[in-house]
Structure formats: structure tokens, C-alpha cells
């Protein structure tokens, strides 16, 4: 600002000294002109200042957001690892065993015309430590095969739907634990929601006890007639 303002000063002085410019002639128009220049320069400077400030502000925000995104990525990866660990087949099998589930017996398939394919047999007794497996679709009066098939289908479904469920459960649970925003009781209830739907059962992380997890125990598979 300063050099430009100074410029007309010496120029007019030199001009006056050499007698080329009549003294005081430019002074009448000078004030608005100077004001205009000052105004222009002032707004320019201010604009530049604001621009710079907002750029810097943006830069701070950017790095803050970057940090946040990094933290969230880290958290996501940690949770994903947890989900993977829960849904690994080995871990699933172990938990199913703890819940008293047993590997399915021979399956049966129901054709559209009503014929049953396969030779179903009752599932083997679960190991003494475990509870009882369940088949919610238990309809009295149906042949044994049908039940077995339902059970088979249930298991098939369970196998497919099981994966996301523990994910939800663990996600909520861990977020609660990590952020500390969630009440402990909530986190605790989130666990059971994540357990396999067919069992509607107890907390998974809690190391399920031998107690029967099924609220509505089904008849013993052995009691069903097997033609």
C-alpha cells in the first residue's frame, strides 16, 4: 500500500519543481482518487486475508477430518477382524458345540410332488456338556422325515444368515466398550442378539454354560418316529 501512495507525492513534487505542472491543479481531484485506491487496496488486502484465513481453516479441518477418517478406518478394521474371528468356521463350530448343537444327520429333501428324498435319521445325542438343538418348525402329526427336513433347512438357513448376525452383535458390543458411550447393560444385551437366530439364546461371548439355551425346548429327536 505504502509505495503506491507515496508515488504520486514525489511525482507531483518533481513536476512542480520543473514547473511543468501548475501548482495545486491536481489537488482538487486527488482526494477521491486516493480514497478509491485506498478502498480498492484495502478490500484487496482484506479479501486476501480472509481467503488465506479460510484456506488455513480449511487445511486445519482437512487434517482433522483425515485424522478422524484414519481413526474410523482403524476401528473398522479392528471390528472387522473381530467379526472374522467370530464367523470363522472353526469358531462357529466350537460355539455351536458349546450351545449343544450337533452336526446334522443325513438330510432329507422334499420334492415338489411331495416325495421325500434321503434317509433321515435322528441327530446324534449332543455331548453331555451341551444343551439341546432346536427346530422351531415342529409340527405335530407330520411324518418324521418332514421334521428332519425342517431341521435341515433351518440349519441351512442358519448357516447362511449366521454371519451378519454375530457381526451386528459384536459391533454394537465393541463400540459400546470402546467409546464408553453406551451403557453397559445395552452392550450386554447386544451380545445375545448376535447369537444364532435359531437358538435365540444366551450371550455368545459369555462362554455359554451347559444350560438349555432354548426357551421352548423341542421334543427329544429320539422320540420322533423314524420309518
Amino acid at each position: 500500500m505504502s509505495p503506491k501512495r507515496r508515488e504520486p507525492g514525489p511525482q507531483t513534487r518533481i513536476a512542480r519543481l520543473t514547473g511543468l505542472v501548475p501548482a495545486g491543479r491536481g489537488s482538487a481531484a486527488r482526494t477521491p482518487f486516493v480514497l478509491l485506491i485506498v478502498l480498492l487496496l484495502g478490500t484487496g488486502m482484506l479479501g486476501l486475508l480472509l481467503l488465506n484465513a479460510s484456506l488455513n481453516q480449511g487445511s486445519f479441518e482437512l487434517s482433522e477430518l483425515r485424522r478422524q477418517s484414519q481413526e474410523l478406518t482403524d476401528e473398522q478394521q479392528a471390528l472387522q477382524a473381530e467379526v472374522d474371528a467370530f464367523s470363522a468356521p472353526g469358531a462357529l463350530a466350537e460355539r455351536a458345540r458349546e450351545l449343544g448343537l450337533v452336526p446334522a444327520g443325513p438330510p432329507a429333501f422334499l420334492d415338489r410332488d411331495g416325495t421325500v428324498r434321503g434317509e433321515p435319521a435322528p441327530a446324534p445325542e449332543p455331548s453331555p456338556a451341551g444343551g439341546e438343538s432346536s427346530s422351531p418348525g415342529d409340527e405335530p402329526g407330520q411324518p418324521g422325515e418332514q421334521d428332519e427336513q425342517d431341521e435341515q433347512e433351518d440349519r441351512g438357513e442358519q448357516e447362511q444368515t449366521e454371519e451378519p448376525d454375530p457381526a451386528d452383535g459384536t459391533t454394537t458390543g465393541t463400540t459400546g466398550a470402546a467409546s464408553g458411550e453406551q451403557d453397559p447393560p445395552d452392550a450386554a444385551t447386544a451380545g445375545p442378539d448376535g447369537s444364532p437366530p435359531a437358538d435365540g439364546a444366551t450371550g455368545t461371548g459369555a462362554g455359554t454354560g451347559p444350560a438349555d439355551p432354548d426357551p421352548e425346548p423341542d421334543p427329544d429327536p429320539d422320540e420322533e418316529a423314524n420309518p
Partner: protein
Amino acid sequence: MSGSDRARGGGTRPPAPRRPRTPGTRRGGHPRPAAVRPRLRLVGLGLALVLVAFTVRLVQVQAVDAATYTEKAAVNRYVEVPLAAQRGDITDRNGTALATTVDAYDITADPFLFTEEQTGVPDAPQQAAALLAPILDRDEATLAGLLSEPGSRYAVLARQQTPQTWRQIKDLRNNLREAADKGTGDQVLSGVFAEKNAKRVYPGGDLAAATLGFVNAEGVGGGGVEAQFNTLLAGEDGTITYAQSGGRRVPTAGSHELPAVPGTDIALTLDRDIQWAAQNAISAQVAASKADDGYVVVMDTTTGEILALAGAPGYDPNDLGSVTDSGLLRNAALQDAFEPGSTLKVATMAAVLEEGVAGPGTHVTVPNRLPRADRNFADDHDHETYYLTLAGVLAKSSNIGTILAAEELGDTQPEANEVLHAYLTRFGFGRPTGLGFPGETAGILAAPGDWNSAQQYTIPFGQGMSVNAVQAASVYATVANGGERIAPTLIRGYTGPDGSFEPAPEAERERVISEETAAQLAEILETVVTSPEGTGSAAQIPGYRVAGKTGTSNRVDPETGRYSGYTASFAGFAPADDPRIAVYCAVQNPTEGSYNGSKVCGPVFNEVMDFSLKALQVPPTGSDFPGLPVTFDPND
């Protein structure tokens, strides 16, 4: 630039005016009016000189040496940061990740910053070690030793720690700094740093580990699929160049970014659940039999896709450091060559049936000993002369019967050898499987002209040649697929960085035997399982029709090159009349309990097949098969 510029300019400037001025003031001290003009000139001259000096310096800085200074400035102002490409995932056929990459940090330290003169505390390393040990899960004394190493400027405290661990350390360091500012504690962690070092994780642990392989410390695939597709998986690293000041990016200065291209995701044909079942079953059996190795291969017979490729003992690629024997890192199912034994008889029978020299009901009289090539061949047990059908030869797994049948392949023994060799080659023996797996063996199948006198009689029943487990499984998949061989595949497709899925190229198909022959073979193999006299009854699965064949072969000890111990195997497919799945199991050198293929591998086959059928929801075909006649009455 400005800093050095100013420093140099400042150095030149003061002496210049001082020289003329100092004498000038001295002279000026004694006023002499006549001296005014020369003094003004002298000052003018001095100023001119100074201006000249400035100008010269200006030209020098701005024009002559400009490039040098720009370069010097750019060194500090512009930084080039590499952008690491994210390594692609390896998934199973359903998209579940079997290998993935997560962020991780190597926690390092500068022991110099833990010395007393730096921290002001005599036992800084010990204090720091006590703080870090529980976080890093390492021994406190070891950490203290690393941190108090004299003269060292670099120590790795722990490798590939989670970001959460690093954040914990940072928080701890901040707390210490606050405490130190208040004077209530000492900052002993200022010398701890972290280096980003992405970590490859295998969520399934040892699941399919031998197939996936591992990534070495440089981030390069060191085995298995990781090595085979390293270039695809690795992607391309990028760089970003930007201006920085005080460690912060200057927003207005331009930057140049060459983005990293993330690696391609690879989808395998493996099914995670079937893989687990196979691995579980074979691990248990290898442990129970105190065997050296065991493999299970599960193939989809309609597509040639490998659904499971399991080996035992395995290893956990997440914890490579604990693997003491580097031999464990191989994929035994593809890298071990062994004599297949009786499971190969099915290929011989395929040749016999296809050539039309015998049918399933053809009578074969099997003596207890068969003199051929300077020795007497025998079956695995002594017996009276058997009167078997061709189906019975396979059901009872008679070596002698197989030799007799194979002899019929040509008018002379060399001709018969040629024919058998041609079939074996077409079944995939003695050549690579086409998987392109690193370190894969093609097995050994000598040219028919080179078969020695004993080999020409042993090869028909699977001794005197060697195969890998996938080759052996492929034979059964071929028979199951109506005689058309589909080259085994392990890769289902690729998902590029843009998210588009590109399926793997179609597998090669090649007809080996006719459909009728394949159907006959399937019936014979089913007889092996269903017949009370068959060897394969262990494979029966209620409700399903199963075709299978046992194998108990003499095993060549890889160390001595001599026969020692046995290879127990079992191969088959189901459902026999509409095959979907072929399973092959082999256990090397079972030393505990039975070494019989039916006893050792039969249950494994059964378990894996049963699981696979259920996992893929294959319905039973519902038909019934009484089995082919196994014997005939010689008096008829």
C-alpha cells in the same frame, strides 16, 4: 531462499559503507568548506559502489545461481511421500476374505533419547519399558535392554502392532508430557516412534493356509497364491509431492499426486466351510494315525473347480515366526508326489472298458500268485483262486486281476503299455495340473518305452509312478463328469480396483473316455462301496449313492528313496448316478493303528463328502442300485 540470501547480503553490505564513512567522519571532524564537494562525491561514489555490489549480488542470486538456490529450497519445502497401494484380498468362492490387509505400525525407538542427558532421568529406559511392556505384550527386561543399548539410534520394539496400540502409546506420551510440564513426572517416552507397515492377516488362521501362502517381510508373496499372483495382488504404489512448512502441508502451493492403484482381489474356488471340514477331518486323522502328512481334495465334478484343498499338518500364516520346519510351508497336496496305489486302478479299468477288451461282467480268474517279470505278484492278502468279474476285481482291489485285465489292452505287452500310457496321460498324469501353482509337481510317469519289466505290471495298479493329490482327484472328477476331463481350477475370478469382476478363463475340457464307459465305471465304483465283499463300505452315506475306491500303496520314503511304510488313500464321488462332488483323501505313512486305505481315509472321505453334500445342498437322487455281480461261479 530468502534466508540464505539475506545472510549473504548482510555480510557484504556493512563493510562497504563503513570504509568510506569512517575516514569521512574523521576528516569531517575538522571542518574545511573546500572539502565539502569531494566528500559528497566520495559518498556518492561509495553509494554507487554499494549499489553495484548489490546489483552484482542480485544478478548472481537471481540469475546465475538461481537454479541452485531453487533446488536447495525445494529440498526442504517439497516432500515426496510414497502412497502404498493396498494389497488385494484373497476371498473364497462366496467372497469371504481368506487373506486381507490391515494398517499396522512397527513401534521403534531411538535409544539416544532415553539417555540421562536427554531425559534428565537416570532410569528412563527402565521406566519406559515398564510403561510399554503391558501395551506391547513384551518382556519388560528385554525392552529395557533394547532402550538402553549404548550408541544405538534405532531399536524395533514390536512389529506390526494395531493402530489402537500405537494410539495408546501416543496417549500415554501426551499424559507424560502434561505431567512433565506440571513438574509432577518425567517425559520418558519422547523417543518412541511408529512406522507404518501394513499387515497381512488371515482371518481363518490355518484355514487353507497352504493354498493361500504367505507374505514375507518385504510385503512380497512368499508362497502359494500370494506368490503366484503377487503382481496382481500388490497393485502399484503411487507418490504425492507437495509443499510443506513446519510439517504441515501448504494449501496454496501446488501438489502433484500420482495415486496408488490398489491390488486386484482374487476369488478362489475354495468354499470356506468345505475347506474347514476337510481340514478338520484330515488333521484329526493324521494326528490319530501319527502319520507324516495327509491331504484332502474336494472338486466340483461339473466345473472342475477345487472346493477344498486341505493338508495336514498345517500352519498359521498369521504367526509365521512359530513355524520351525520350513517344509511345513509347502502345499503338500500339490507339491508332494507319491505312488497312488489302488486308487489308480480306475484309470486302468477305464482304458480296458473304453478299448472294449472287457466289460464289467467279464470273468477274471485270479490266482493267489501271478508269475510275471522274474517275480510273483500277489494281492494284499493270500487267498484261494478267486473267480471275479471285472467289477469284482475293482471291488476286491485285486492287483493280479488288474494286471491280467491290463495285459489285454494290446496284442503284445509293449503295445498294451502304449495304450495304458496314453490313457494315463489323458487323465492328467505326468503333466502339470494347469493350476500354475508355485512348486507344483507334475508327478512322474515314464514314457512307455522306458517302463522296466516290473513297472509294466505295477503301473496298472498304481505303483512305479507318482502323482500329486489333485491329479489323483481329477481322475475321479473326470469319471464323474461322464468321461470329460475338466482341468482343475483354483481361481474363480478377479475383482479389479474399479470393482468389476472378471471371471477366470474357462477351464480346458478334454474327452478321455466315452459317456458309456464312464457310466459303467461309476457302477463298478459304486459296487466297491455297496458290495459286502467290496473294500469301500466305509464310504457309505445314508440316502446317497456313493462311488469310491480305496488305495493302500507302498510308500517311497522321500529320504531314503526306498519303500517304507504305506500311503492310505480313498477316492470317490457322489451321488454316483448324478455326480456333483469328488473327494480324494490320502494319508502318508500312518504309523498308529491301521494303515489300510479304507480304515484310515474311508472315514475322512465319508465325513468330508457328507459335509460337502449338505453344504452344497445336493439332494439324493432317490434311485436304488443293487450293485454289480462281483464273483462268478466257475462251474457255470
